[in-house]
């Protein structure tokens, strides 16, 4: 299980780095919302992989909170943000 956790962790880290590029580069705020939403899913996946590897169930409330807050944040920004300057 250690090898699986390491391989999955490396893949998720690479995914997070790539997504961070999109968050930085944009060009529009909607692209950044897409990147943030993706990053939240990657973070939840990372927490789940760590919980599976360490057999520690105290991480589960953190995964729930991450899913809830991630959704609220993405929906709120998409709905209420100011239009981009062209």
């Amino acid at each position: 299980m250690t090898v699986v956790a390491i391989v999955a962790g490396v893949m998720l880290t690479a995914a997070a780095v790539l997504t961070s590029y999109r968050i930085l580069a944009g060009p529009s705020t909607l692209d950044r919302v897409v990147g943030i939403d993706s990053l939240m899913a990657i973070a939840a996946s990372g927490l789940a992989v760590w919980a599976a590897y360490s057999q520690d169930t105290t991480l589960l409330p953190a995964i729930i909170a991450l899913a809830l807050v991630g959704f609220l944040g993405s929906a709120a920004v998409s709905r209420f943000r100011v239009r981009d300057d062209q």
Partner: protein
Amino acid sequence: MTLWQWLSAALILFGATLALTAAIAIVRFPDTLTRMHAATKPQVVGLILVLAGAAIELYGHGNVWALVLVGLFTLLTAPVVAHLIGRTAYREQRHRDGLLTVNELGNEID
């Protein structure tokens, strides 16, 4: 390793692979609507696979139902965020000309 551990390992690795492919697509796709597509579909399936693998690995602990809850919640909320982003992107004309073969909303929008 037991059969369950092999299944859990396969699910987690496949889920992480889907997350990585989604991230590659977010970087490489040309516009907001296509990036939204990549961020929503493979990303959510990947997360659910990882949660399923973690649930198998943690089976026997009392509160594994939380992972099922996260999976269901993700299934319900990801399309909502995708719809909000897609709607806003369309209304601000952030799609390529000629991308929509039949644009049924084109004349209705005020």
